Structures are given as structure tokens and as C-alpha cells.
């Protein structure tokens, strides 16, 4: 009985969310085929980004709100690939390489910053994301076209400086990964290659924690002082964890955007942090513990709710707006709840 209670408590969030999802689906009366095709697509689109959060959590840095830095790197890379008109899979490959290169630099800087703010990494990484967003806007609103050459005039604002609000990927790299291998099950389209990439990343993460580096990351996450005494260079390990997370986020953003097909120049990266973190937490992760399964389950549950919330809100209250606000509220509330639990537990350990 006690054991059952323990299981129920530790899986409280996923269970509550499952109930919420099922009732929302029943209320909204969404056709199951439509729901299935949406979920499969979102699974191949978003899981990579959510997985990028796992390494810093195990490294004891908490939720890395700094993945927006990686997302910005991914977008920046895509802008140039589009400008250079590199098409198809080659374009994706070039974008991934460029995104990784930028992400390594950004992740290194982020890691150094977070090492100066031990104990308040999460708020620092969040503010770091906002700060980087300012720099990003400065570059892509004022420098591009003036200081940085950009040939494709149709993506620039009328004065020839600064990118437009949306940059189109159709005709260059849109769906380049999706189209390589598509399987149709009834009317549900399954994009196999992105799913395979996600599976490969899962294997990589599982493998990483079997290596020396992975064990070091885990040790640092459990107790920094003991790790230090054991001869691990704590600061270096933490920087590596942040770099890895940022690079994965950069690649994840490329995968995400090739599916979406258009880049929302000044918004796409902002939502990524929020939705990825919320999804991971919905899957039952905490700020100190996260697994691959948390990520997959989280994407499933969170995006089910995401798809059905507006129509459920419409059916219940007669206003689709209520559903949209409700969905936003849930994303924030889940994070607030997880953080509160984190604080609560940290305090119990201290006492």
C-alpha cells in the first residue's frame, strides 16, 4: 500500500495530466485520426529539443532555460543557408554544422556565466536567454543587410536592413528531413527520418552516461563538493554539460523549423524554451531528475493537450480564447509547480 502511494506521488504530474488530456479529448470530440496524425508529427518535431534539456538536469544545473541560445543559433544558421540557397538534405547538414559551431561558442559563454551563479542557475539562464534575445534582435533587425551581407532581398524589410517577421523555408530546406522517408498508415503520415534521429539521440544520451564524462556529470549533479574532492574539475564538467545542451538545442531547432516550414524570426525561439521545459516536466521530470522516457511521455501528453485545448475551451465556455489562455496557464503552472516542488525538497534536505 505504501509502495503504491509512493508511485502515485512520484507520478502525480503525469497522471493528473493524463486525466486532463483524456477529458479534454472527450469534451472536444476531436476525431481520433486527426489527433493521432498531429501527435505523431509533433513527436518527430519536438522530442529532440526536449531531450536537449536532460544533460544539464543530471549535471545539477536544473532546467536549462538557456536552450533558447541554441535555438537562436539554429535559426541564425538557417537564415544563412536560405540566403546561400543550399537546398534539401545538404542544406540541413550545413545548417546543423553551422548551428553547432555557433552553439559551442554560446554554450561555452553560458556555462562560464552559470558557473558564476551557482545555486541560482535557473533564473540566471532564463535572464541570459532574454539578454541573448536582445543581442539577437540587434543583429537581425539592425546589422543584417548593413554590416552583415544578405543577398535575398525578399526576406529583408523594405529599407534593405533587418529581416522580416517571417522567413520562408519553402523551396529550400522545408520538410527536407521529413520527405526522405515517409510512411502512410491510413491517413496518418509518419516521418521516419526525424524519428530515427530522435532514437539515435536517445541512444547517445544513454551511452553518454555510461562513459567517464557521463559519470562525472552525474557526480557533479549529486554533490559538487564531493565531486571536487574526488578530483573532478567541477567547473569544466558543468561547462561541458551546458555546451552539449546548447548544441543539441541548436540542431533540435533546425529539425523543428524544417517541419514547420517558416521561421517566425523574432518569436520562434522564445516559445521553444517554455514549451520544451513544460513538456519535460509534464512527463514527470523534476529539476533534479529526468529520463528519456520523461521527455517522450511529456511530449505526448503536453502536445495532446496543446492540440485539443482550444476546441475544448470552445465547447465548454463558448470562447476559443479561454482554451488558449488555459493552455498557456497550464504551461506556466506546470513549471511553477515543478519549481515549487524543487524548492520544497531542497529545503527538506537542508533541514
Amino acid at each position, binding site marked *: 500500500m505504501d509502495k503504491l502511494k509512493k508511485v502515485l506521488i512520484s507520478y502525480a504530474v503525469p497522471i493528473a495530466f493524463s486525466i486532463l488530456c483524456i477529458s479534454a479529448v472527450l469534451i472536444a470530440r476531436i476525431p481520433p485520426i486527426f489527433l493521432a496524425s498531429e501527435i505523431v508529427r509533433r513527436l518527430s518535431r519536438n522530442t529532440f529539443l526536449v531531450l536537449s534539456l536532460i544533460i544539464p538536469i543530471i549535471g545539477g544545473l536544473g532546467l536549462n532555460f538557456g536552450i533558447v541560445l541554441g535555438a537562436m543559433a539554429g535559426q541564425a544558421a538557417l537564415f544563412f543557408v536560405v540566403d546561400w540557397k543550399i537546398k534539401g538534405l545538404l542544406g540541413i547538414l550545413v545548417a546543423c554544422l553551422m548551428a553547432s559551431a555557433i552553439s559551442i561558442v554560446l554554450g561555452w559563454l553560458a556555462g562560464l*556565466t552559470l558557473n*558564476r*551563479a551557482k*545555486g*541560482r542557475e*535557473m*533564473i*540566471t539562464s*532564463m*535572464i*541570459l536567454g*532574454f*539578454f541573448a*534575445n*536582445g*543581442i539577437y*534582435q*540587434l543583429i537581425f*533587425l*539592425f546589422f543584417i543587410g548593413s554590416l552583415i551581407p544578405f543577398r535575398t532581398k525578399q526576406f529583408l524589410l523594405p*529599407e534593405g*536592413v*533587418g529581416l522580416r517577421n517571417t522567413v520562408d523555408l519553402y523551396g529550400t530546406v522545408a520538410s527536407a528531413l521529413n520527405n526522405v522517408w515517409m510512411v502512410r498508415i491510413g491517413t496518418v503520415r509518419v516521418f521516419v527520418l526525424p524519428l530515427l534521429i530522435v532514437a539515435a539521440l536517445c541512444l547517445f544520451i544513454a551511452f553518454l552516461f555510461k562513459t567517464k564524462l557521463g559519470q562525472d556529470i552525474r557526480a557533479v549533479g549529486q554533490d559538487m563538493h564531493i565531486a571536487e574532492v574526488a578530483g573532478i574539475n567541477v567547473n569544466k564538467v558543468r561547462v561541458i554539460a551546458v555546451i552539449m545542451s546548447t548544441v543539441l538545442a541548436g540542431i533540435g531547432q533546425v529539425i523543428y523549423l524544417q517541419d514547420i516550414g517558416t521561421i517566425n524570426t523574432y518569436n520562434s525561439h522564445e516559445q521553444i524554451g517554455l514549451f520544451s521545459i513544460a513538456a519535460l516536466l509534464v512527463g514527470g521530470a523534476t529539476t533534479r531528475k529526468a529520463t528519456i522516457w520523461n521527455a517522450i511521455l511529456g511530449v505526448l501528453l503536453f502536445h495532446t493537450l496543446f492540440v485539443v485545448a482550444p476546441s475544448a475551451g470552445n465547447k465548454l*465556455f463558448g*470562447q476559443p*480564447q*479561454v482554451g488558449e*489562455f*488555459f493552455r*498557456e*496557464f497550464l*504551461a*506556466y*503552472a506546470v*513549471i*511553477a509547480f515543478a*519549481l*515549487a516542488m*524543487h*524548492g*520544497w525538497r*531542497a*529545503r527538506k534536505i*537542508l533541514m
Partner: protein
Amino acid sequence: MDRFLEWLKRVDIPTLIIFLFLIALFVLAAFTKVSIPSLLSDSIRRIGMNGVLVLAMVPTIRVGTGPNFGLPVGIIGGLLGALISMQLGLAGFTGFWVAILFAILICLGIGLGYGWLLERVRGQEMMVGTYMGYSVVAFMSIMWLMLPFKNPDMIWAIGGKGLRYTLALDKYFAHILNNFLKFKIGGFEFPTGLLLFFAGACFLVHLFFRTRTGLAIDLVGQNERYAISSGVNPNKARLIAVVLSNVLAGVGIIVYAQSYGFLQLYQAPLFMTFPAVASILIGGASIKRANIRNVIVGTAIFQTLLTIALPVLSQVTRGDITEVMRLIVSNGMILYALTRTPKEAR
């Protein structure tokens, strides 16, 4: 000269940079066609407009829980107060004071709950506060659509349900403080009432930190164990500080709204937090130390910077670079404060 160098050492480098930037902007303004008196009166108006919100940061910083990133929680209370006053159809000073009264009452209630929550998550107040702010704003967005406000000035004209995004305060208490004892010197306008209110609020908070309770709050922030051994209940001190911060946030948003002339609902409260945090940090506060002088200096520098940057820089560059500058300056300042090594024991 030595004293000047000594003073220079104590000033934060970012504050100095921002201050020098501000002076450079003024010099630039002198060469352009921008009218400096109107810039100055705009700046003064905005200092009074945002000041109380910045003041709300003081209690939580002093009690040791960091800047109040949950500012929207208190702002919601203030908005509710203003809405109730409007629903009652009160105008002028009556409307304003009734709004303040309701705001204080509601914020006391909300603050107690919020303080209770923060007490449970000691050490993570900034992060939990931020996301509590976000969640409360999203939750209240639903409520704005559902709450039974009936005043036709406030709800959507079509459908007759749900509050509008921005409510005009013209018929209620817009500019009521700004116009109180206002005087003009040439093109320069001085909103006496607004600044009197801000000064009064600062003075009250200053007095509060002279009382027994206020000193207890300071003590808890400086050294919790010492506070306990001196017979202070740290939990109670923190609760009081959070409630006070909430009340100031609620009052602050009403002052802001009356000066702006509009009450902004839905997402708007979210955009108040980071500028307010940045302001007090620019004024020389750290995440563990703050006083009234930091509030006044910080608000003055930051708001003047924002006011004068737009007209001056728009003559030099194309487009609105100030929004980007605001993002970089405010978040850069917060980042600096979060990452600097503590040297509090001065």
C-alpha cells in the same frame, strides 16, 4: 580627489557605463532638433509613473529573498482594485483613492498566500516568483473573460462579455495625480502630484524600515541565525516583506495607469517586472542589498535613458532601436547582478 576616487570604486561599472551613455545622449540631443525641455518633462513624468513599482523591490531584497520577480501577482491585485472602482462608476480623486483602497485590501490577501508559498520554497524565490507571475497572469486572462463586470466602458462592445485589452480611464481617474498642482515653465511640465505621491511612498517605506518590524526584516536579510537568536521570527518577517512588496506593486500599477491614461489587462502585467528589477539594480542595489536611494537614482537613470533614447537615436539610426536597447540594458543589468561575486560584508 581621493574621496572622488573612493566613490568611483563603490559605483558599479554597469551603472557608470549607463550613466555615461545617458550623458552622451544628452550631448547628442543638444546637436539635434529635439526639444530638451519636453524630453525632461517626459522623463520626470515617467520616473513618477514607474517609481512605486520599483519601490516594491525594496522589501523583498532587504529580507534576503532577492528582487520580487513575482511583481505581476501584486499588479493583478492593483488591477482588480482599479476595476472595482470603475465598476462602481467613481471618478476623480474618489475613484483613485477607492481604487487604491481596494487594491491594498486585495493585495494583502494575495500577498499572504503568495508569501506562504514563497516560505515553502526558500532559496528558489526568484524562479518560483517568476513563474508564479506568469501563471497568475495567464489564469487572470481567463478570469478577465469570465468575471461579471458590467460597465459598458469596460467590456467588449460585441457579445457583451469579457473585459477589453486596454480600458480608457478618461472618465475615471486618468492623470488625476499628474494634474494635481501641475505647473509649466516654458515647455517644461512638472507633474507635482505624481512626484509628491512617489516621494510620499518612498518616505513611508523609509519610515517603515525604522520601525521594529522593519529593523527585524533587515536583520533577517543580513543574518538569519543572528536574527533568530535576537528573538526575531524570520518566517513572519519574510511574510511581512512579501505582503508589503505586493501592496506596493498594487498601488504602483494604479499610479502607472492613471499617468498612462489606460488600464492594461491580459499580458501587460508581465512587461512590468524586468524593467522594475533592472531599475533598482542600476541604482546600485544588489540582489541582497537595497535602499530608497537606489530606487530613486535607478528609476531616474533608467527612465530618462528610455525616454531620451527614442527621439535622439531615431535621428541617427533607422527604426526603433530603443526596444532592443531596453532588452539588452535591463537584462544585462540583472545578469550582472546575478553573477557578481558577493561582497556584501562591507
